[in-house]
């Protein structure tokens, strides 16, 4: 592989753009297939282009035809935590080990400090404003952790208007019922309610902060890999 092509691949990845590297195993020739542009030694047929799009969508790498190896490079999935609270500190290292790029939103500046969250992207904007800026997509999970309707409600409203593949809200059944009531009053429907996992997390009997973090990330994983929030 030419270093120049490798650097273009790394640049696309750094910018969070999906890209496929296609290698002709017979000749060693290579091309990069971006969303709209193909650059490198050869072009791709419409048929190959479709196969490549499918592989990128499923984050998979495989042989296409006899000798074209397609390698998918997709941006990290994102996890947005609303609430720079203690449980967030348990969720973050696990989420990072699972490959998520984590952002924490909390307008309470005493909570969202770099001392408490070293190296983590922090936003002290109001949750709806912060989420709109982050533009959650179908590779983004959002979890509210504050227990405070003033913060959780605007976050959930913004989350429901996005394509986020997972929305979770920490809180008891009672808290969640009241939350859904408020969302109904704000004009959200039953279908919207169904998108919110509350009480958050897979039912594994989690007790400690770390166990709750595990149950949340297990549920996010199930949603991402199986398309369902319970087993």
């Amino acid at each position, binding site marked *: *592989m030419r*270093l120049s092509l*490798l650097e273009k691949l790394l640049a696309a*990845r750094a910018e969070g753009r999906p890209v496929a590297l296609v*290698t002709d195993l017979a000749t060693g020739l290579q091309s990069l297939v971006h969303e709209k542009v193909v650059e490198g030694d050869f072009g791709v047929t419409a048929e190959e282009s479709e196969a490549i799009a499918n592989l990128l969508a499923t984050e998979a790498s*495989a042989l296409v035809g006899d000798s074209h*190896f397609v*390698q998918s490079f997709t941006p990290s999935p994102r996890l947005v935590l609303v609430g720079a609270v203690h449980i967030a500190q348990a969720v973050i290292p696990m989420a990072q*080990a699972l490959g998520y790029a984590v952002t924490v939103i909390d307008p309470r500046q005493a909570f969202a400090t770099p001392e408490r969250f070293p190296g983590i992207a922090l936003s002290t904007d109001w949750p709806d404003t912060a989420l709109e800026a982050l533009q959650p997509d179908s590779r983004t999970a959002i979890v509210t952790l504050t227990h405070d309707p003033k913060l959780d409600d605007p976050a959930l409203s913004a989350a429901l208007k996005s394509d986020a593949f997972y929305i979770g809200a920490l809180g008891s059944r009672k808290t969640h019922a009241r939350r859904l009531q408020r969302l109904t009053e704000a004009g959200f429907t039953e279908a919207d309610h169904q998108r919110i996992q509350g009480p958050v997390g897979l039912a594994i009997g989690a007790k400690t902060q770390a166990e709750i973090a595990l149950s949340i990330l297990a549920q996010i994983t199930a949603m991402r890999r199986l398309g369902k929030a319970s087993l």
Partner: protein
Amino acid sequence: MVLDPEDVLTRAAAWAKAGDGVALATVIATWGSSPRPAGSHLAIAADGRFIGSVSGGCVEGSVIEQGIEAIADGEPRLLTFGVSDEAAWSVGLACGGTVKIYVERIEV
């Protein structure tokens, strides 16, 4: 922090830019229970330094050797490792299986 395959590419590019000969090994296909999925990387420097994994075991030794040769002659290689269940443990493919690996030089 787990090293993901992407870190391997960053390191490979850094080595190449620093003037070292570098080869990149990529898992193309697996059959049976190979531990590393297609797309997994191992980067090899001419002096034998390496980063990443293509099998999680002793196949690495052979791949590193082939990588060093690819750095020397510039020829890409397609390697296939297959082992019976009985022999699997000794070469580090935990439960048997076959793995196909493409080895190429990074051209500066």
